């Protein structure tokens, strides 16, 4: 089996494996995601109606309120969190949220994550080394 490897920047430590869920649009954790069931509830978002729980969530970067960091913590406590996150270029809301919630996070992968992973691919993310493997 050929395993494709992307190398990124490690931001939040730990490792996780799951099916990829890709959003080409940015995500605001406050208001766009229901912390009780992990559903994307933002009207008109390209992932509206999808569930992020146990997925490797891939999106360009976070937007919106800094309270988003705490919502990520709440997802983790409710066992509705994604298993790992890959950003094109992360920012403090998602980075801090991932760290306090023990969600592995890698960003700035080479080659580009959006050109090499499709929704549904099985992906392993190591947030300590920055290695992303497509299984």
């Amino acid at each position, binding site marked *: 089996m050929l395993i494709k490897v992307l190398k990124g920047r490690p*931001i939040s430590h730990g490792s996780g494996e799951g099916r990829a869920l890709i959003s080409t649009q940015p995500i605001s954790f406050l208001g766009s995601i229901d*912390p009780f069931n992990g559903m994307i509830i933002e009207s008109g978002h390209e992932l509206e109606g999808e569930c992020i729980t146990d997925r490797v969530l891939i999106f360009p970067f976070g937007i919106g*309120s800094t309270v988003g*960091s*705490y919502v990520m913590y*709440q997802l983790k406590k409710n066992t509705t969190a994604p298993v790992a996150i890959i950003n094109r270029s992360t*920012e*403090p809301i998602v980075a*801090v949220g991932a*760290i306090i919630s023990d969600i592995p996070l890698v960003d700035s992968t080479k080659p580009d994550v959006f050109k090499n992973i499709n929704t549904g691919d099985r992906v392993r993310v190591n947030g300590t080394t920055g290695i992303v493997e497509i299984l």
Partner: protein
Amino acid sequence: MYLTQEEESVLEGEQGPTLQKAMEIITALGEIYGADSLVPVTSTQIAGVSYKTIGDAGLEWISDLDGEVVVPSILNPAGMDLERWQEMGIDASFAAKQLEIIKAYRRLGIRCECTCTPYHIDKTLASFGDHLAWSESSAVSYANSVIGARTNREGGPSALAAALIGKTANYGYHLDENRVPVITVQVECKLKGADYGALGYLAGASIGSDVPIFKLISQPSKTNLKALGAAMAASGAVALYHIHGVTPEADQYESPDNTLIIERSEIDDIFKQVCENGPDLVALGCPHYSIEELERLSRLLDGKTLNKEVWVCTSRAIKRSNPDVIRNIEANGVKVFTDTCMVVSPATERFNCTLTDSGKALKYIPNLCGVRTQLAHMHDCLKGGDVD
């Protein structure tokens, strides 16, 4: 990023999981922004206090932490006056949650004087050249611009991480090269009172997150600077500004050619945005009033009859140390609340329209509370809805 052996050991978890997480937050932000090392901070000011803003998610995180801050650390305003919340119309379930949040912060050794103007109550928290980790946008602006201290605009968790570690990552406004102005703002009319809030409201929307240097013909007071910076940090993301001949770092810089000119007519237009049926609440004290502003309010109130609710917010420390001024203000029917502000409190939501002397409140109350807001000078606010 270079870490000392001790910093590395904290990151490895040798001093427990809370400090490990705190160090992970600081180093991750350092990585994102290209910091070369960590820098010790004199104090921290921590946002994420109002139950209205952080909710159960934030309360859970703070309650789960186990540690003690190592530098003086103080909280941002809460969602209510911690003692007189019933008078604000706050319901008991909100109050219980809010008090739980305060208790969780206190357990970490944080000073629970909830204020957006820590510089009014303790001058040792920030001096010229000090590195800080402050959160509240108007306090960040004041510390950087008026005091000449150095802080980025921290989120709640990153300020708390800095409080636990005593350090922050050395990037952004901690570095000389990011404190240089890139745009000149020229104002050729005289300014007074709430004009500075209107100016900040206009300038911030154009400037975004850049560093401006102002050329003014008026000489602003500390109160005026507070209002200007607070409004620019609300309508834009201005964390540092300079004013020629006024702020401590301004005179080492030339004015950039890139110039924004703000006219009297534009400032006047901000005051002309009025609600149809007039305001039913006057909200003063955003940011928290200083003793000078409270004394002025007290003088203005003498002999006036108020025809609507007037609320003023300040810090508990200022209220405690000036009982005569507060007594006179309250004797005239004004409510003086502490520990909170009209922007982060749900109390504002039951009104239809607020009248304020703050450019910051003018920006935030409509967005965060869904209440229409109009701007007026302090003396006009006390007259009612008729604005000169």
